[in-house]
């Protein structure tokens, strides 16, 4: 047996590898397989359903000529906006959960996790009912109580942004709490005793020490809202079209797999690159063990 074969056999006999096999098989046939297929299809001639055409870049050219890149840019803008809004909204709450609420933090966590288990569709539909023009809960209440007519709020960019921020809020909040709870009280006290202001403490101690949590939260929020579909469809209506909606219509109504594949690849390469860069900087053992 050659040295290489011996090393391979040694690798395969590790108990850890053997325990990982079932999940790895699932990922192989359910995740990497489909992704490779989509990647290959993106180089096939338009509207083909088989992989026998010659490799071509025509789908990518088409994507840029037909202003699909606008949806891609719009999705990036929405994703960046969602991260920015959530960072500002969640930071004080995360600080409170990590350092202030003490024994209530557990209950509060539960209260904030629960909506996550309610189907996204139900919650988005609830926002439609709330924001609906004329007879919606908000407009109806404003009219009945104050006698004022509210302007239409649904089917706009701001409604979509709010929907995204709403749905992905826990994905930002909880990693942030995890990150901020890694900041030791002693370090903050020491800085404070040495005369640091609240702003200095935040900028020079809290943010750097909590960075792993903040990065994970920001990354999750960014990637998930980048590829989101229902938020813009339900709250943005036909006015707000994001890249996932373009991909969907290329695959389904358009019956143009290569175009849908090319758009997916563009989205995934940009998002995946970001994920890999950030993940490679994190030590997962250290983050998860803290709990």
């Amino acid at each position: 047996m050659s040295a290489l074969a011996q090393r391979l056999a040694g690798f395969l006999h590790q108990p850890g590898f053997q325990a990982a096999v079932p999940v790895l098989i699932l990922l192989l046939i359910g995740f990497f397989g489909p992704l490779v297929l989509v990647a290959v299809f993106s180089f096939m001639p338009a509207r083909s359903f088989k992989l026998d055409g010659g490799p071509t870049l025509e789908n990518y050219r088409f994507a840029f000529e037909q202003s699909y890149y606008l949806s891609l840019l719009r999705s990036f803008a929405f994703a960046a906006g969602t991260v920015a809004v959530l960072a500002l909204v969640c930071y004080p709450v995360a600080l409170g959960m990590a350092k202030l609420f003490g024994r209530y933090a557990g209950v509060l966590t539960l209260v904030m996790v629960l909506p996550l288990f309610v189907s996204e569709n139900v919650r988005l539909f609830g926002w439609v009912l709330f924001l609906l023009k004329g007879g919606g809960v908000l407009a109806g209440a404003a009219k009945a109580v104050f006698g004022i007519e509210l302007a239409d709020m649904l089917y706009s960019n701001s409604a979509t942004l709010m929907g995204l921020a709403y749905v992905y809020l826990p994905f930002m909040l909880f990693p942030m709490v995890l990150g901020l709870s890694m900041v030791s009280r002693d370090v903050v006290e020491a800085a404070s005793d040495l005369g640091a202001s609240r702003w200095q403490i935040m900028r020079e101690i809290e943010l750097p020490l909590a960075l792993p949590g903040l990065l994970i939260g920001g990354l999750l929020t960014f990637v998930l809202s980048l590829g989101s579909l229902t938020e813009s469809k339900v709250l943005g209506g036909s006015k707000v079209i994001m890249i996932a909606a373009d991909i969907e219509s290329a695959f389904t109504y358009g019956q143009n797999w290569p175009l849908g594949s090319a758009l997916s690849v563009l989205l995934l390469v940009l998002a995946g690159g970001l994920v890999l860069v950030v993940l490679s900087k994190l030590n997962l053992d250290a983050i998860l063990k803290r709990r």
Partner: protein
Amino acid sequence: MDIIAKPLARRLIAVWTACLIAFLYIPIVCVFLVSFHKGRYFSFPFDDFTFDWYGKAFSSLQTQELFLISLKVAGVVTAISVVLALFGGLAFARFNWRGRTIFQHLLLLPIFFPQAVLGLALLIWLTYLGVLPSWQTAVFAHLVWIAPIATLVVSIQVYGYDAAQEEAAYDLGATRLQVLREITLPALSPGLVSGGLFAFLLSWGNFPLSFFTTGADSTVPEWLYTRMVAGYTPMVPTMGALIVVGAAAVLVAGYIFIVWRRRPIGG
């Protein structure tokens, strides 16, 4: 001296947190509120409260079918996820092996992945392989996203698990199966229950993966979406409320189970 010294700052944080919680629950409350509205076209405020739509939902064969499919998918996903997560969690956190860091990162990829795109990629994959989409393929699609999450949940428990107990059992002559049944499983059971709860609830409410992979079958979240986009009926808020009640029931049952399991061991 505390991290947040000023009482005003503390109070502001508390108020802001309360606002955020209200924000999280506004749409859910709206759905429940509207589900009691009698009229065909919704307009707030209203005074004609009724339970009619609930009665219709329970007696309709179509809605029973929808709930049955959702339940089947979530049940099978839970069972398979727990098994995969047990071994996956051991590989993630218990064993020190070459390739573990890569495995940890690979496992996170499906979680950090836009679900709608994953659903579409799976649709193309299944169609290309000639598999007819049905509720079974939806189970497979859910697993790709949910099994890694369940594995993470179990891993957190595994990190706190003392593997020396296993060594001791082996030294006393226990077989591999005995160690698994008598040592590993009982020690990890709270993590497995939480992992199973996550799996069930995430599958029960999932839309983007189901939408592209169930074929002719339909789950409740899918039905809600198609009715929201076109063909609204007053049944939509009722079904929405029912799916929330279902999730809450499972959550409460799981919570009670965890508390009940902890009691005899913890004393």
